[in-house]
Structure formats: C-alpha cells, structure tokens
C-alpha cells in the first residue's frame, strides 16, 4: 500500500471567497487523512481554489479510500493522460 498515485479530490463550489482559506481547508482535509500537516504538504500536488474547489494529491489506495468517504468530498478520481492533437 506504499505506492502512491495522483488523485484529484473534487469538492465542488468554493466554500470561501479567499483563495488562501480554500487552500488551507484542502491542507486540513488531507492532513486529517495522512496524519499531519507536514506530510499533507509533501503529498499535495495542486490546490484548485479559483474556478472551483478541489485538490490533487499523491495518495495510496487506502488514503484515497478514506478521502473518498469524507463527507466534504464529492468525487475522487485518478489522474489521467491527454495528448496533443
């Protein structure tokens, strides 16, 4: 279970007008699953805080499972590849 991959945690509409508060809430949510804010910072890839709310993070399958069960999480999706046309 130590293998991590990027998951997008989609939280829908922003809960705060202030983008910093949105990002803080993302770090808090991830920290509750991974154990600490320090670890959460290392695993966080992106915080989506302007057009919508969500974050991308490097997660193990069990961490992803726990996040998916979090009441604030609308959907949790693995990263995927797109190509030039």
């Amino acid at each position, binding site marked *: 279970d130590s293998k991590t991959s990027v998951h997008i945690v989609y939280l*829908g509409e922003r809960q705060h007008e202030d983008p910093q508060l949105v990002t803080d809430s993302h770090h808090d949510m991830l920290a509750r699953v991974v154990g600490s804010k320090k670890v959460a910072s290392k695993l966080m890839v*992106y915080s989506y805080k302007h*057009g*919508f709310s*969500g974050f991308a993070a490097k997660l193990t399958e069990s961490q992803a499972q726990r996040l998916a069960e979090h009441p604030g999480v609308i959907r949790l*999706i693995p*990263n*995927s590849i*797109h190509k030039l*046309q």
Partner: protein
Amino acid sequence: TTRSWDYLDHSYHTPNILLDKSNKGDGVIIGVIDTGIWPESMAFNDEGIGPVPSRWKGGCESGEQFNATAHCNRKVIGARWFVDGLLAEYGQPLNISANKEYLSPRDAHGHGTHTSSTAAGSYVRNISYKGLGLGTVRGGAPSARLAIYKVCWFVLGGQCTSADILKAFDEAIHDGVDVLSLSIGSGIPLFSDVDERDGIATGSFHAVAKGITVVCAAANDGPSSQTVQNTAPWILTVGASTMDRAFPTPVTLGNNKTILGEAMYAGKEIGFTGLIYPESKGLDPTSAGVCQELSLNRSLVAGKVVLCFTSVARRTAISNATSVVRAAGGVGLIVAKNPSDDLAPCSNDFPCVEVDYEVGTQILFYIRSTRSPVVKLSPSKTQVGKLVSAKVAHFSSRGPSSIAPAILKPDIAAPGVNILAATSPLAPLADGGFVMFSGTSMATPHVSGIVALLKALHPDWSPATIKSALVTTALRNDDYGFPIFAEGSSRKLADPFDFGGGIVNPNGAADPGLVYDMGVADYVHYLCAMGYTNTSISQLTGQSMACPSIQPSILDVNLPSITIPSLRNSTTLTRTVTNVGPVNSTYIAVIEPPVGTIMSVRPNVLAFDAQTKTITFTVTVFSTHQINAGYHFGSLTWTNGVHTVRSPISVRIQFVESYADGN
C-alpha cells in the same frame, strides 16, 4: 496561416467587417493551454499593441531559459507552467532524455508556439516553408493578448495530465482570460461529462459558467464516425478542413508523361534517373513493395527512385520507407496511398512524393512495360485558389458523439492542414522558426482567434451565443460556390458529423441576426436529460441541483443544431432564438427536411420588436418510412432577407431501438 485567413475571407487585403470593427481583438485575452511558447518568435512582437488590460490578474513565471521580465511583453502577458501532476506520476526529474524540454513556459516541442501564433500572433511578412506557402503569417486576432499555460510536456511523445490541465483552468479563470484554446484530447472511449478524469469537460464547465468561451480540438481519429472528442455541449468543438492551397509536385516518367503528386519537396530537381518497384518473384509479388515493409538491396536501389504502395494512412509508412530507401542509396521515393491530408516534408529534404493508388498504378504499369524505366522529380510548387477545393480533412474526428449523439459534434470546422505558423526552432522540421503542422490542433486556434474578435465586437455575448453565431453562419460551400467534400474512403459531400455547421465564416458570425443562447440552467437541463443523477450534476456544478421529476428531453437543449438519433414515428422539439440584429425584424422559416421525413415549424414566422427579443418555436419531425436507416441531413433556416440563420439537422429513423448501426 499564410493562406488560411485569405481562404476564410478574413484578410487585411479585402474590406473586413470583423477584423476592423473589433480592432483586431485588442483588449481580449486568449488563454492557450498547450506546450508553452517560444517567446523570441517574431510572431509575438508587441509593436503597436497597447498596455496590458487593467483587469488582467495573471502573470509571467520565470523558469529554465525563460525570464519573465525579458520574455513577456504586451502581446504575451501571461506565461505559467504546470508539471507537478506529471512529475508525481512519473517521478522526478522529468525524463527528457529523448527530447529537449524546459522546466519553464518555454516551448521545446513547438506545438504551443504554433497554436498561440495561429490564435493571436502578430503580423510577420514574407514567411514561407523553404519557399513553399509564401505569405504573411498572423493570428486570427493579431492584436489580442496571449496568456500561456504550459501543461503538455515533450515526454513520451507529448503528454498532459488532467491534474495539470485542471490547474491551468483554475488559474486561467482567476487570471481573467476571455477565451481558452485547447488543442488537446484524450482517447476513445470517452469519460462522461461529469467525470473529472476528463479534466477538460470539468474545467471548461466552470470556465463557461463564468463567461469564458472554451474552444477544443475534435481530435484526429477520423474519418471513422463516433470518434469526436471534447463533446460536452458547453465546449466549442473544432474539426479540421483543408483550404484552397496545394503543393503539386511534378513526376515525369521516361515516356514523357508528367503526373502531379503532392509533396513538400523544396530541394533540387532529381533529373531522369532509374525508377524501380521492388517486386518479388513467387505467389505474392507485391509484398516486397509495401512501403512500411521495404527491405532493399543497395546494388539495385543506389541512385534510383523507388515506388512503393501502402494502405497505412499515418505517416509512419512514409517515414519508414524514406529511411530504408535513403539507407540503400536511393535518391527519391514515390508513395502510392489513400489520401490522408497528412502531408509533411521528409527529413533532410529527401524527395518523397505522394500519389493516389490510381496514379501509383499508372506508374507501376509504366515500370512493368519498360526495360529501363526512368523518372524525374521536380520541386513542389505552391498552388492557391479555385483549382484547389477545400474538404474536411481525412484525420478530423467525426460525429456523432459517442456520449450524446443528440448533441451535434463537431460544432464547426476550420483550416487545419499544412498550416504555416511559428514554432520552436528546436522542432525537427522547423525552417527559420516556422513550420507546417496539420491536425485539429491547428484548426482550433483559428476558431479561438475568431472568437476573440467576436468577444471584442460583442463583449456581452455568452459562450453559447458565440457558438450559435459561428454554427449558424458557417459555410457549406466554398468561395467558388462548390459544396465542400469530406475526405475519407471514398470522398463524399460533407455532412454535419464531418464539420458541424460548416467551415467557419468570421464575417458572417459577426452579424448572425438570431442566436440560440444558453446558460448554466440549460447545461443542467442537458445533464438531467442525459440521466445523470442529481448527485452527479451537483458534483459537476458544485452546487446542489435537482432535476425535474419528469426527465427533460435532450432534443430540447437550446443548441443551434438539431440531431435526432432515434426517430420512430414523430417527435416535437423546442428552440428559443434571441434577436441580436435590428430590433424590428421578421424572419420566416425555410425548411429542408432530411430524406424520409416531413418537418413543420410553429410559428413559421418570427416577428421581433423592442418588446419581443426572444421567441420560442417548435419543430415537429415525422418519419415517412418504417425502416432502420442511417442518418439523413437537412436544415432549418430563418431568414429576414439580410440574415440567414441556418441550423444543420441530422435525423436517423430507428424502428428497432438500440440497433448497433453506429452511423
């Protein structure tokens, strides 16, 4: 672009309503989500461009070989890069051993520079590709600003992850772009519109909800049907067409017969020299002449031109054959193949001329009938104008949409074949920083540039209004009055699944008369009609949504097109038009029903005045045959004598439902 804007009647040579009235897109910001930018290109000089719009909240980020202060200007006002999603998957450092890449907005690949310069590049005169296609390179909105979001990286052939794409959307929405241009796709089967794995569908929903038009490539999986990508109804999906330009290349046989092939050969003439077809003995004599399987004997090939045949549409067959012929000492290659619109120069100016099977067979018969066949290969010429008819490109992905066949996709087509534009000087085929690329990637920024002009001219128009204006004014005939064909096997008249409303008509779109507008509520209507759950829809919109207890009809989504994938007896659908032309206008309906149907429109006269700006009408379609058929096509046109507002109609009569008869 040295020809494409002329082909679209969008040239500075002629009086141009849209280009002039929109002040060439000044003040509009186009976000390009792609492989970055080569900032030193002449296409991005900011001469004559005013100060950065005050509403711009974005910025430029320095990185490897990219200095934000030096490399951003009043043309390129934003440049950022997003790689963490890719690095997190593949590990650090980025594996760029195969290709040069920069951890910065700088574009090593060249694709992003090409698309950016096509959308909003400045005028650069006297540009050609080794003498071919000489003219002025420019963007569709030459005074618009560019905001570059680099998310695609020159690793494993060029890849972008949905995590990085979503971040670019998130930042672009914040920065204040007006248009987003994405020449990116994923693959078939598609992810649903509410699935964030399709980062483009999700990100674009939020962008469109905030008034940003999102223009995306239809993908390059044509000519098979149901291959179109980026199919969400809030996206403007662009297919690729050719234009009225070709590069005929004379092939003169020893019998003095000259045949015109196609190539981008700018080298010296190859005077009369031996011509061979590697025919083997035995039961399968033609197997040795298959381009992608050539195995040549140097003593037979040295100094000669080789003819081969291939049924592979992609350029891999030509590339392989070129390498083999060169290695064996050959001096030229003639490839007989199905047309694929995938013309490109062969490396090191090696002459590789494409002909169709008919011409290839003529050459073969000449070889077989002559003891010492010889051939002369002349350099390619540039031919423009009415002798060359435009068509939907072979590779351009086709509808109907595999997610929602009732939503016509692609929406529109634009030139995307042999487009000469700026690129990275590191791109293998670049000539002085410019190159010809083909793909729906190249068609997309043509439309993005035009959207920027429309946005400058009509700042209050919604993304759906802009899409409607483009679709209902698009052209089905070329400038010379001939209908546009679609390349495939075999060539046929183009239909809405090839090019949506048709080939984009910039000046027509500036003054469409009536539009089919939509907002978030209409997109929710679509999602409800698709049967997505309230939860799924809320997931996408980010707000609590509840669909009506009676499921709405997808046929009633207020699109500028009508597609009925399964007509049994009759069906009635609704549309609402908004008058954006003269206040007092009366339009009458002109119906061209698809074969096997009867259509009626109520009311069939729409009278607008100061009080009546929007009118709802119904369309009823009856089937006249009890048969499972393919799609037939027609149109509904509203006209007031000045404006012609044409909606493409596609109907498939299906008496047995869920019958696997794709198109």
